[in-house]
């Protein structure tokens, strides 16, 4: 009998589960993680093309990179044609490459799937398409799951957001890229299920009578909503589904923009335009690692010597050149998560040349992300309206995904549908559990 599993390929975290017809078993695919059933969607590829995923990727990255030496060499990158009024010439383009870089850490692989125009990335001498990266990650996940189960896995049900992208072409392309990656990773059969519907399947296990439910799947990359009739598998029906590209990573970015950039002088010091550009690139997780060039270092050093906000610029230099970007984003994310329970927390980072300390309260966080609440509420109400149900006809609102724990959104759901109707499910496992149920049936 061929073994089928469910895989939740999430923006921040992933998971694998198997269903035996009665029980869902979440597989401990990341033994190094605090929750071994949850694996970070992070891939680290070394210079000799060894690959690591999850916590192991993070640890290897830290071990190899933080405060390491750098040596830049000028490398020919291509040529450009320059056309003038009556002339045309070709110019060579060179880039500075850090030849001591031991590896590349890649995160938000799922977001890359739906990015318009993003084909992939060159890692040292080899080009990796988005599909290649997803393939490597899924193949490693498959191997780990097989070693836990002790038998080969033939088929998989993969979760997918309601909308990878607003554009139907990009949406289809992202799904097909993911399907191809899963096939290349070694799965013989691949099918998909919408993530909120998967969460609904998990929730359905707890029901004794049919009801109308909203699945509010709010994760790291997208918000997915499904309005469904649940409780009786024969009468299960999806009335409407919807989604929007707002989620945890947007909140992290907002926190950085509003609270952390002043530590690098933004809004406090009048920076040189090139330095201001560097500061504004800090919230962008893809742009920050690219800032570490000798030219930028020279600009920063000159400004530091000229005593233009030297402490703030030294901190920026430390962040860029000591490979602290990943740590920085993690600290911000950890603070955001902490505010789901506490009223105040600290975003703290101390390393060579960098000492950031920011007391951050839930009030500040809620005022920072207030503009997203209106968008989320609009999408939610639109989806409910399309379902043909009135808010009063909704029996339960099931929230899942890390961002669904943010009190501001819980309060919004309670305000719209009533406090008693908001049900919490396991933020990190309900989708994968539902996918396993779908795969097992």
């Amino acid at each position, binding site marked *: 009998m061929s073994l089928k599993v469910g895989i939740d390929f999430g923006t921040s975290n992933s998971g694998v589960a198997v269903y035996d017809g009665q029980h869902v078993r979440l597989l401990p695919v990341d033994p190094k993680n605090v929750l071994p059933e949850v694996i970070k969607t992070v891939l680290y590829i070394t210079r000799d093309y060894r690959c690591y995923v999850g916590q192991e990727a993070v640890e290897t990255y830290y071990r190899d990179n933080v405060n390491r030496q750098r040596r830049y060499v000028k490398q020919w990158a291509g040529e450009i044609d320059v056309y003038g009024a009556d002339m045309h010439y070709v110019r060579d383009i060179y880039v500075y490459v850090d030849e001591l870089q031991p590896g590349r850490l890649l995160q938000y692989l799922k977001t890359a799937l739906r990015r318009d125009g993003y084909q992939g990335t060159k890692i040292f001498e080899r080009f990796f398409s988005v599909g290649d990266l997803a393939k490597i990650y899924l193949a490693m996940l498959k191997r780990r799951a097989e070693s836990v189960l002790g038998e080969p896995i033939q088929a998989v049900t993969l979760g997918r957001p309601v909308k990878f992208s607003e554009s139907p072409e990009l949406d289809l392309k992202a799904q097909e890229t993911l399907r191809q990656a899963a096939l290349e990773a070694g799965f013989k059969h691949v099918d998909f299920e919408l993530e909120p519907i998967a969460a609904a399947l998990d929730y359905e296990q707890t029901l004794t009578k049919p009801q109308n439910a909203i699945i509010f799947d709010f994760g790291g990359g997208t918000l997915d909503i499904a309005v469904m009739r649940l409780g009786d598998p024969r009468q299960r029906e999806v009335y409407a589904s919807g989604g929007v590209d707002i989620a945890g990573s947007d909140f992290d970015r907002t926190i950085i923009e509003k609270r952390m950039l002043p530590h690098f002088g933004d809004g406090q010091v009048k920076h040189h335009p090139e330095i201001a550009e560097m500061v504004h690139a800090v919230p962008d997780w893809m742009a920050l690692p690219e800032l570490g060039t000798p030219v930028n270092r020279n600009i920063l050093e000159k400004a530091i010597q000229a005593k233009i906000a030297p402490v703030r610029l030294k901190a920026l230099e430390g962040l860029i050149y000591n490979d602290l970007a990943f740590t920085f984003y993690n600290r911000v994310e950890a603070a955001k998560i902490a505010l789901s329970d506490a*009223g*105040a*927390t600290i975003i703290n980072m101390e390393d060579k040349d960098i000492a950031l300390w920011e*007391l951050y*309260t*839930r*009030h500040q966080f809620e005022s920072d992300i207030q503009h997203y609440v209106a968008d989320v509420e609009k999408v939610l109400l639109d989806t409910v309206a399309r379902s043909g149900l009135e808010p009063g006809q909704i029996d339960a609102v099931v929230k899942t995904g890390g961002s669904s724990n943010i009190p501001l959104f819980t309060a919004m759901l309670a305000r719209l549908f009533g406090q008693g109707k908001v049900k919490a499910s396991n933020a990190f496992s309900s989708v994968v559990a539902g996918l396993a149920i779908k795969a097992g049936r």
Partner: protein
Amino acid sequence: MSFHNKIDEWIQEAEARPESALTIVKLIAKRLRELTERNEALLAENIALENGTRVDEYRKRIAHLEYQLDLLKRRFNADEEDLRVDVAARTGETSTTTSLLVYNARGKFFRVELSDEISEIGQIQGGLSVEMEPPRFLAVPSNGEVLLLFSSGRVSTYAVSNLPRAEAGGAWTWEQASMPDEPRAGETLSCVAPIDALPLSDFFLQVSRRGYVKKTMTSMVQSILSNHYLGKGAMQKSDQPFDLTLTRKTDRFALVTYEGHLLGLDVDDLSYTVEGRIRLTATDYVVGSFLMRPDESLLCVTQAGKVVVREQKEIEISKSPLAKGQPLIPPSRLGQGVRFMGAVAARDADKIAVLDAEGRIRLHIAESMRGAGTVEAQGLVLSIGRIPSEGGRP
């Protein structure tokens, strides 16, 4: 956003959720404590700067660097102007000869400039016997500098080029020898070590006759030289320094004893205090100590001229504080009176200087010594020394 605005936001949080007030106060109190500690450290640093202790520390460091620069200049025959041009470019152009120093415990030196053709260094007439401390050898660049370590722990430096040259192949008596630094009353010259590699080394490693080992950081060289004192590196009254070597943290070191015990040591594991590392019998003592490099073999020579060879991989690194070492002489031979007179680590192309009881000093190729398993000598062998081939370390 100004700091006042932030405080207003914190107050708003406390007003909205009173339970947050306690968390905010705790977090601010913790921060305050951290800042107070940091402020204290900065004030202490400020005091150190104001009262000059930090200045003294930096002065010492500068003096140390100046001394190392001076050594490098001598090493490369460069004056300051040349150094500014390009030290690195000169290294390839400078051709320096190698001098073989032959010295005894009374501080007397002969210096012979070596060339490829020389195989007979010379003959020392008189003043040699098996009972006495035999003369020792050191091959150094002729423009180098050496450190003299005396049995009292006193040290002094001397430029090799300042020693008068003796003609190779001649017959010498100790009366003709030069004495760069006369031992003081009750003192003997224990060993001479080249210090050209000082800027590239981490430690001075001292070994005593009875197998005590001590390492001293080379960053202290300025105070060592200004005080003319490194220390004996020995604990027992009857013990005295045997050898001094410049090492790096990652080096491996070995010593060989008269009764044929070999001990390998990891430099990084060694203590900064004097520490006994090998358990010796009452009649045993160290006759050879050296750094172990992967391309070198260990050559031990008995008094009869027999050569015992060990490859690097055969040498075990001892971790225990008082080890017996690996026996190189079988008990039966030991019973017959076989003893080592010296031991060196050498590459095949290196030469080995051998002094026999007749006072003759001859050079032998290490590879032929390995092959023959014996070394030709007039009577008993008294002492041996290594002369590195071109490109080899000193």
